[in-house]
């Protein structure tokens, strides 16, 4: 029985192999000489003595080999031998090897890359943050509503104070500012955080400090900021004396107290944060006044880390209990509201929730690609195993066990998939940041999506590799198990096109490839069509003739009165420009990143149930906004300059809001309560798109800027002029008013719209690339099978030609064989696609998952690919020389 000691002894042997051989040689030599010397003493001649000694000894070679073998792990030795043989086989047919390894590299690489993205988002979305596995996101929920709300600061503090199952709570709310350093002004993203932020996430600034306790209290009491490493390097030229210097953020001078470490991007899936400010500075960045004491202002994005060993369910129970206590204590603000914990990958207020299902589908897609790649390599192996049938048969006839042959085949598969896996990991390594490339970055805002090769990726890649090995090894193994020694040794090589029982495995693999790539093609088709639909959907405003931009008054430190005066003057100047039809300010441009104001509303005629507090979003717009945007008025009037602070409060509602809250009666002249103030409805606007092109019609309303003023505003200009020309003119006008102001980029609304559909475009690109890859692999597979079939049936083809078949007949014969395979594959693919495309439903817009056009185009593409793949083999068939083909026999 092998013991541990024995194992260790053998292991040591591996180290001193060379010495062992030498010593054994010396030892055997000594033995022979000593024996010979004894014989000489007995009176034999020297030669005779040596001869007798050798006879006594037996085979020196055998003694040496057996002694050596005593030390070896036998399986290891066999494995090494198989690997050697396998490597030799690969080396001997380089075109086969390169093709096979390339297929596997693409298949495994695609899997490793997509897995590394998904895994990054799932397990460590925030690089450098400690104990992410126990972090959960917090959001508010309302009973009877599906969406989420954010939390108010007082609610957050109460949860933090009264909970017992958590290590830490922290706030990280995305915000933005215009960073003007030197002459360059750029939009930059940052976070409003609680004072314990850096401590809670275990990130220590490399220069200076994090925030101090208490820096998140008071109104604008602590203008301090920690900047990112990237910002420090690029905009501050890595100034070592940076700590203590100041930087204006949103018009307020902030002291830089710390620089975050390299590789820390903040805590927001999708974007890299460049600066952090404590929550006390919230009103400088958020607008809408001081909110830290307001339980009705729900604006914070927060996280909590569970204590070790606490389950998400227990934590949720405690949070729910605390939330219902809040509901009881503060019915006015918290009625019908509760709080929910989310796993990080479902965080409702960043991009995690939307990215993950996409990656899930991509994982399924790349698994398909891998299957196709394996089928391809399997097919190549099959063809080769047929060519090696003779070798295998001879080996079997010489007594090689079936298990031994099988092991050899599996080792060859292993070798291929190992090489493929190495290549695949390289591909994944190159692609680790490719996910970011699919989403366009704008201005100074950069994307960050984690993707890295770690042990999980390695583990999955190894698993994929093993699976591929099995798949690859099994195919020729089936073939081998059917070895008929007697028949095979009689080398009967002449075949008939497609008429072979043996070719079923190859044909089956091709059918599998065709059906899988058919599914991917249908998916790509559906996504392309829905992207097209999204693009051609009427956004409800004129996207082409309206330019949008903004002037950063906030960081320039404008007061409300200064901003009003400046904006009025600028508007007058712009409207006077040649080519400008009209212009208007609004707080937000549609489909931009940034959230509209929202308020719980009350309506005269609408009875609110006690459980429900309807919240509706709105935009603060200037006079003539609707006309400038091209949003039609259904009835009533637009805001005018007369709707100012001194006039009666007014609002314009959209059609959906009118029907939802006034149920058929005319809302004009009726009142709506917003943030405690009653406003009279003066107009009804047609519905348009506000946040996303895919949204369903939602209630929305407009209020005049003059009655609800916020300094930050975007300017909309209706003009046929080009954006670049407008930017120059506009810059001149602005600098005439104030030479220190910086202008944002001037873009058509259409550009804004395109950016908002970037993720759909990314999905189409990805699926398109993978679908194309699958199609290519399937075509290669088809080509391989048809070429092989033709090369194996030269006799039959020659016979047909001799009997009077024309070239076109042979062409038809070969192509119809290929088409038959494709047809079967397409039928299976259609069945699979009918079931699978339903998974895409969330990504489709205005397209049924069973859209016949998508299926038809997939079929057409498949058909063309088939014809291309069959053409060369078919042409080769027509070139068969009948005389030579017949003489071969």
């Amino acid at each position: 029985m092998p013991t541990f000691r024995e194992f260790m002894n053998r292991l040591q042997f591996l180290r001193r192999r060379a010495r062992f051989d030498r010593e054994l040689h010396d030892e055997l030599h000594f033995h022979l000489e000593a024996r010979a010397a004894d014989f000489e003493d007995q009176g034999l001649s020297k030669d005779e003595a040596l001869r007798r000694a050798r006879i006594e000894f037996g085979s020196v070679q055998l003694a040496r080999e057996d002694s050596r073998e005593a030390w070896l792990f036998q399986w290891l030795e066999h494995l090494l031998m198989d690997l050697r043989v396998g490597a030799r086989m690969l080396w001997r047919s380089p075109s086969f090897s390169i093709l096979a390894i390339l297929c596997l590299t693409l298949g495994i690489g695609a899997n490793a890359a997509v897995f590394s993205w998904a895994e990054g988002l799932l397990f460590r979305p925030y690089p450098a943050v400690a104990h992410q596995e126990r972090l959960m996101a917090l959001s508010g929920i309302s009973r009877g509503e599906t969406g989420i709300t954010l939390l108010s600061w007082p609610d957050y503090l109460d949860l933090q104070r009264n909970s017992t199952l958590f290590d830490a709570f922290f706030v990280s709310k995305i915000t933005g500012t215009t960073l003007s350093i030197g002459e360059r002004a750029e939009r930059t993203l940052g976070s409003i955080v609680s004072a314990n932020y850096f401590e809670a996430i275990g990130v220590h600034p490399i220069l200076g400090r994090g925030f101090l306790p208490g820096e998140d209290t008071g109104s604008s009491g602590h203008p301090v900021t920690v900047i990112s490493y990237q910002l420090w390097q690029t905009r501050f030229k890595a100034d070592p004396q940076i700590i203590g210097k100041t930087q204006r953020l949103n018009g307020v001078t902030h002291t830089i107290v710390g620089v975050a470490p390299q590789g820390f991007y903040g805590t927001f899936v999708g974007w890299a944060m460049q600066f952090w400010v404590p929550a006390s500075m919230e009103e400088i960045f958020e607008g809408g006044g001081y909110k830290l004491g307001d339980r009705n202002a729900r604006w914070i994005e927060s996280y909590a880390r569970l204590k070790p060993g606490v389950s998400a369910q227990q934590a949720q129970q405690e949070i729910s209990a605390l939330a219902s206590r809040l509901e009881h204590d503060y019915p006015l603000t918290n009625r019908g509201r509760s709080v929910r914990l989310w796993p990080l990958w479902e965080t409702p207020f960043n991009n995690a929730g939307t990215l993950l299902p996409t990656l899930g589908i991509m994982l399924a897609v790349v698994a398909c690609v891998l299957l196709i790649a394996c089928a391809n390599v399997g097919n190549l192996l099959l063809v080769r195993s047929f060519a090696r049938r003779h070798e295998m048969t001879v080996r079997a006839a010489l007594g090689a066990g079936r298990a031994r042959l099988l092991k050899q085949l599996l080792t060859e598969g292993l070798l291929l998939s190992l090489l493929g896996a190495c290549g695949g990991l390289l591909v994944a390594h190159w692609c680790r940041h490719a996910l970011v490339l699919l989403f366009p970055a704008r201005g100074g805002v950069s994307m960050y999506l984690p993707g890295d090769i770690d042990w999980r990726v390695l583990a999955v890649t190894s698993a994929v590799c093993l699976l591929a090995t099995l798949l690859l090894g099994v195919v020729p193994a089936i073939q081998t198990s059917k070895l008929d020694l007697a028949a095979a040794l009689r080398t009967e090589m002449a075949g008939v096109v497609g008429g072979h029982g043996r070719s079923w495995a190859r044909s089956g693999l091709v059918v599998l490839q065709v059906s899988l790539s058919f599914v991917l093609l249908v998916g790509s088709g559906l996504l392309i069509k829905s992207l097209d639909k999204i693009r051609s959907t009427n956004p409800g405003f004129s996207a082409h003739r309206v330019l949008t931009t903004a002037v950063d008054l906030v960081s320039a430190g404008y007061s409300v009165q200064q901003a009003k005066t400046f904006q009025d003057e600028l508007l007058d100047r712009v409207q006077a420009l040649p080519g400008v039809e009209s212009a208007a300010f609004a707080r937000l441009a549609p489909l931009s990143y940034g959230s509209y104001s929202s308020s719980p509303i009350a309506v005269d005629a609408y009875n609110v149930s006690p459980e429900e507090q309807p919240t509706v979003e709105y935009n603060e717009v200037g006079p003539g906004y609707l006309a400038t945007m091209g949003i039609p008025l259904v009835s009533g009037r637009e805001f005018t300059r007369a709707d100012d602070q001194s006039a009666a409060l007014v609002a314009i509602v959209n059609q959906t809001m009118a029907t939802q809250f006034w149920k058929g009666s005319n809302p004009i002249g009726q009142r709506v309560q917003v943030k405690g103030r009653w406003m009279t409805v003066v107009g009804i606007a047609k519905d348009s798109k506000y946040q996303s092109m895919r949204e369903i019609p939602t209630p929305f309303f407009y209020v005049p800027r003059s009655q609800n003023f916020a300094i930050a505003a975007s300017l909309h200009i209706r003009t046929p002029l080009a954006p670049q020309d407008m930017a120059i003119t506009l810059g001149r006008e602005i600098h005439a008013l104030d030479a220190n102001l910086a202008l944002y980029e001037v873009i058509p609304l259409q550009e804004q719209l395109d950016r908002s559909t970037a993720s759909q475009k990314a999905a189409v690109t990805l699926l398109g690339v993978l679908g194309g890859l699958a199609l290519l692999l399937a075509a290669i597979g088809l080509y391989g099978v048809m070429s092989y079939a033709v090369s194996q049936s030269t006799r039959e083809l020659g016979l047909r030609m001799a009997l009077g078949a024309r070239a076109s007949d042979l062409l038809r014969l070969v192509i119809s064989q290929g088409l038959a395979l494709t047809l079967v594959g397409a039928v299976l693919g259609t069945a699979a696609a009918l079931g699978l495309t339903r998974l895409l439903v969330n990504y489709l817009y205005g397209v049924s998952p069973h859209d016949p056009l998508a299926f038809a185009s997939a079929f057409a593409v498949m058909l063309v690919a088939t014809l291309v793949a069959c053409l060369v083999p078919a042409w080769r068939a027509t070139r068969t020389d009948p005389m030579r083909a017949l003489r071969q026999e």
Partner: protein
Amino acid sequence: MPKNDTQLLPGTLFLLILKSLARGPLHGYAIAKRIKNASDNGLAIEDGSLYPALNRLLVKGWLQAHWGTSENNRKARFYRLTPEGRKQLHAEAREFEKLVKNIQLVMRTV
């Protein structure tokens, strides 16, 4: 080589090697000589087959090997019993005696 040798029972070679080393370290040739002399050349062992057996015993840790000088001043490899090897020798010797006794018993009764 046609000889009227007795075939070895399986595993006996190990026992013979262990036994011949019981009185102290020997080199390979000395072990071969001792086994042959002790059995009066009656056992069919090729000298060569001794070495794989020695190596198997080394792997098992029953023997240890070291280089030394032979009686005629040549460099030779000496084998020595380890404590485990000694224990194994006793155990196997007992087993073997039992086996032989049983066989003799059977031979007498039949």
